[in-house]
């Protein structure tokens, strides 16, 4: 979560009071209050259960004594210990006591709440009680496991902890999860392979999907690649199969040339403002070839990574989707030459960007990567024309690339190639020049090893007389089928030389009289650290991946970014595609370097998360959010000032008996229950539901009580 600065905060507050967001807070409040009223006046009857956890707890803690001791406490009606509370018979015990003994609060002392709190809430619920009339006490991780050497004290501690649980249970009130109507519509940001896969999977679950792609065509980086591992398929062929399915799916809407310019809201209802750049050329325009010829503007073609030039009216490649041409507004001089050609269709140089809003229930961020761009002079890049990057080599190998698939650079044929791994990856501070943000890329980009060896294989197949020298740090061909490329490279005579990050290879122009234009010098650790020089015609830098710069988007969506600038998930193993913002999930290389296969996994995983969120049209959120006591609130606004969550709490103006005053109002959908507002409120007017201040007071009091359990026994 990015911390909004003070200035923004104030602005947000203003915005909020102007346009209140629509959550049905009042309805919710009424429902809960009614339930509380229903429960009101009844006797509190507490059931206490101490789990033995098959010896995990009872070998240290005398669970029988704990249960016996708890029995003495006011309101406790039942107190038992049992071998496995989480087992069916354990849960049955709770249900039976609810039904037969009329208990209306339940306290279970067992393992960590992470493990079984939900289990017992369900048991309580199936017994007919509100599931939040339950308190979980951890006496395994917090007690028996860590105090095995002190059984007496451990038993006393268990009693203390359970007492606190009982004290809290006495003050529990029924709660209702916050229910939000969810738009059955997802937004996918990015039309690369991950975004397309995500969109397709979501659409197949009969949810609406909008794909927003910044460039004017679909397919992203895959479209620029020639042959992809581990199947040696034509990248375009793989891509087109996905694109065709996407185009054929009626649930998917595509906006190319489009960017997000504003976003607000929460899971179930994100309000997104989009800006679409016009194409400037109508789809049926038939004079493109001629228009390109007459256009006087020439700029480096980003699709070919600057290896060739394109005009200000262009089409990235034949067969791109959408297939129409576009105007490069940044460089077009509006000279009007192109307007004079073509019979059918039209060019409109006066078109302007078009802004529109959509509302979606969830967002998939699949903004992808940029290949690392070496600094001028890094391994001779930008100074020696024979030094190129791996993506540029892929363009050269591509049949529709700048050389039409011929292995040529700077106009001359290539016989000896040096490929240098880890350019822009696994960098060392003090050795490599940092990026503008002051950081070096210390991560491994994972994909480049196999991609480099895959390119070597292609070269060997199409140009068998080429000698390839592979300068690596470590070969990390980690995935299924990847190692074959390494073995294959050896068999095809690729010569491997190993350098260490501290002593990177040196690339220079060859001195006069050399046959090959470039000289690579490397301290080769496979040859006892000898300095080895390799005369070559071409140097290929296996550049790593960096996330597409999306600072604006990160600011709008409030998703977190790792130290490596890639977007951050909640937990790498347990919640690998979710962000800390409910309703926003990640897909593909925006999250870290991935192969096409992995980006596809990620896209489909993100889709499954989105489907689970939106498929019922309703999202249930835990009720542990801030609640204002309107009697105590005086509208000081401290809570609004300190709330770290956007739009979670705001001041609203009320008028009552001719008196106008301000009170804080919580938007439960946006509140994450952190409790900052509780601590800053000068009037004790805010509580986190399920964890109220009164409950905490009671727990602390209970913990401070004397216990003399063993003397009684």
């Amino acid at each position, binding site marked *: 979560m990015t911390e909004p600065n003070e200035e923004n905060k104030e602005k947000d507050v203003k915005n909020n009071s102007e346009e209140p967001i629509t959550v049905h807070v009042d309805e919710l409040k009424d429902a809960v209050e009614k339930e509380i009223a229903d429960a009101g006046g009844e006797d509190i009857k507490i059931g206490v259960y101490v789990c033995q956890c098959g010896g995990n707890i009872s070998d240290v803690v005398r669970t029988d004594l704990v249960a016996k001791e708890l029995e003495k406490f006011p309101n406790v009606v039942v107190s038992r210990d049992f071998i496995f509370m989480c087992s069916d018979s354990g849960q049955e015990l709770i249900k039976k006591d609810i039904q037969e003994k009329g208990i209306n609060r339940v306290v279970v002392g067992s393992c960590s709440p992470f493990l079984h709190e939900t289990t017992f809430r369900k048991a309580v619920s199936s017994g007919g009680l509100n599931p939040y009339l339950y308190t979980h006490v951890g006496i395994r991780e917090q007690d028996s496991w860590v105090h095995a050497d002190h059984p007496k004290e451990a038993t006393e501690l268990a009693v203390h902890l359970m007492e606190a649980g009982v004290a809290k249970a006495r003050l529990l009130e029924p709660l209702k999860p916050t229910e939000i109507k969810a738009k059955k519509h997802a937004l996918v940001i990015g039309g690369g392979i991950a975004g397309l896969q995500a969109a397709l999977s979501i659409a197949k679950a009969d949810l609406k999907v909008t794909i927003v792609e910044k460039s004017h065509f679909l397919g992203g980086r895959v479209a620029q690649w020639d042959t992809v591992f581990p199947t040696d398929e034509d990248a375009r062929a793989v891509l087109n199969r996905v694109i065709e399915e996407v185009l054929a799916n009626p649930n998917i809407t595509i906006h190319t040339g489009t960017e997000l310019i504003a976003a607000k809201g929460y899971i179930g209802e994100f309000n997104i403002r989009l800006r679409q750049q016009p194409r400037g050329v109508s789809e049926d325009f038939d004079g493109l070839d001629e228009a390109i010829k007459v256009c006087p503007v020439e700029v480096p073609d980003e699709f070919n990574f600057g290896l060739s030039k394109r005009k200000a009216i262009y089409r990235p490649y034949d067969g791109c989707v959408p297939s129409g041409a576009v105007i490069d507004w940044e460089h077009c001089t509006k000279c009007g030459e192109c307007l004079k050609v073509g019979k059918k269709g039209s060019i409109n140089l006066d078109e302007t960007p078009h802004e529109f809003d959509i509302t979606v229930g969830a967002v998939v961020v699949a903004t992808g990567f940029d290949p690392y761009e070496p600094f001028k002079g890094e391994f001779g890049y930008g100074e020696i024309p024979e030094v190129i990057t791996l993506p540029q080599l892929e363009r050269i190998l591509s049949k529709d690339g700048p050389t039409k698939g011929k292995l040529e650079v700077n106009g001359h044929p290539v016989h*000896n190639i040096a490929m240098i791994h880890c350019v822009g990856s696994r960098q060392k501070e003090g050795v490599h020049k940092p990026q503008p943000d002051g950081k070096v890329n210390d991560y491994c980009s994972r994909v480049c090893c196999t991609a480099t060896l895959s390119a070597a294989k292609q070269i060997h197949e199409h140009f068998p007389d080429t*000698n390839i*020298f592979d300068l690596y740090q470590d070969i990390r061909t980690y995935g299924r089928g990847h190692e074959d490329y390494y*073995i294959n490279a*050896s*068999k*095809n*005579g*690729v*010569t*491997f*030389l190993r350098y260490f990050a501290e002593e990177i290879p040196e690339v220079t122009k060859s001195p006069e009289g050399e046959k090959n234009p470039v000289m690579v*010098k490397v301290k*080769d650790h*496979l*040859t*006892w650290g*000898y*300095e*080895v*020089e*390799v*005369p070559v015609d071409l140097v290929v830098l296996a550049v790593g991946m960096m996330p597409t710069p999306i600072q604006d988007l990160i600011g709008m969506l409030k998703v977190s970014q790792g130290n490596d600038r890639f977007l951050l998930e909640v937990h790498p193993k347990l919640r690998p595609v979710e962000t800390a913002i409910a309703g926003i999930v990640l897909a593909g290389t925006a999250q870290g370097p991935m192969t096409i296969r992995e980006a596809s996994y990620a896209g489909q995983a993100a889709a499954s998360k989105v489907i689970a969120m939106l498929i019922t049209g309703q999202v249930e959120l835990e009720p542990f959010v801030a609640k204002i006591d309107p009697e105590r609130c005086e509208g000081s606004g401290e809570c609004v000032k300190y709330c770290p969550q956007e739009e979670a709490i705001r001041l609203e103006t009320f008028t009552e008996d001719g008196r106008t005053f301000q009170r804080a109002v919580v938007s439960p959908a946006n509140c994450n229950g952190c409790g900052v507002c509780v601590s800053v409120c000068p009037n004790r007017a805010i509580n986190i539901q399920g964890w109220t201040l009164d409950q905490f007071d009671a727990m602390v009091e209970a913990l401070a009580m004397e216990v003399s359990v063993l003397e009684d026994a």
Partner: protein
Amino acid sequence: MTYRVDPTFVDELKKYGHVNIEDCFNCGNCTAICPLSTSETPFPRKNIRQAQLGLRENLLESVDPWLCYYCGECTLTCPRQAEPAEAQMAMRRWLTAQYDWTGLARKFYTSKVWEIGAVFFLAAFIVVTFVLFHGPIVTDHVALNTFAPVHLVELGDYVMLVGLSFFLLSNIFRMYLFIVRSDKSLKIPFKLYITEAWQLLYNTVTQIRYAKCDEEEGQSFWEKTRWRNHLIIVSGYGLMFTLVVVFLRWFQTDNYYPIWHPQRWLGYYATIALLFGAGDAIIGRIKKDNEMHKYSHPSDWMFPILLLLTAFTGILLHTFRYLGLPLPTYYTYVIHLAILTPMLVLEVPFGKWAHLAYRPFAIYFEAIKEKAKVLQESQTTADAYAAAD
């Protein structure tokens, strides 16, 4: 020192054997398992790496290929099936071709036409010489020394001995230049050449390094089959060589001796040893039942086949003489020489036989270099101390 890669070298080396070193990823298992390699001579990994990069000079100055006796453990252990042992074999052939300044060795190794052509050319030369210049043919009894007067044959022997020695020694001198003199910084005291000379004789006679190759600890001489067999071949070859070159007048005779006479049993021992050695090599290469014989370069066949034929015609010659068959004796004699001569001329300075000389010399050179390095280092240290004082 900067080394320049030469991507053409592996292809060149491939002409000298079944080379598969592209598959090597330099893990070093081969060197770890090798019973002979040391930290100073970490073969085969080091040589393989030099070959992969095409560092010709490095390979030329390396003695390591000669220190390997092809037990094949490395090949069996190689995780990439890069055939390190065969690579070392190919490097020995390549080195033999490099040491030879005439270029003939390279021709013989890389061209079957040249090799077989040379054998037939020399054989034809011998046959023609005898057709034109043989002595009187006595048909009532065997008179070999009349047909081929021993003093004349001996003269031919000496001519050949001088010629082959000249080529072989000049090749060894080149080997010396490559291996010892390549390191200009190394000062070698002349005394070392004398004090280390025992290595030459000792290793030639005992083949002792072979005993360490491939065999288990604590085996007796008879259990170390490869060393034992090789020693038998070397002894047989050495003995026969001595008999026909040094003692020809005594060995080529028209006298009939009793069976216990040394002229007979020495000859029998040498013949049996040669038959055994050549037969072992040929059968091994046909069956490919051990690492050493798995891959056969054309030159690997030529030497044992010529040897076997030499021994075989020698036996025939001997048999015909003792049976008193004059003409078969004379004809067989000519054929015997027509096989023997190319075997010696081709193999001694330009082929397989040369390893008989190169191996002990390699050990000798290595010992000299090592000792010189130790001396130089202690001298440097002493100088440093002296300077410090």
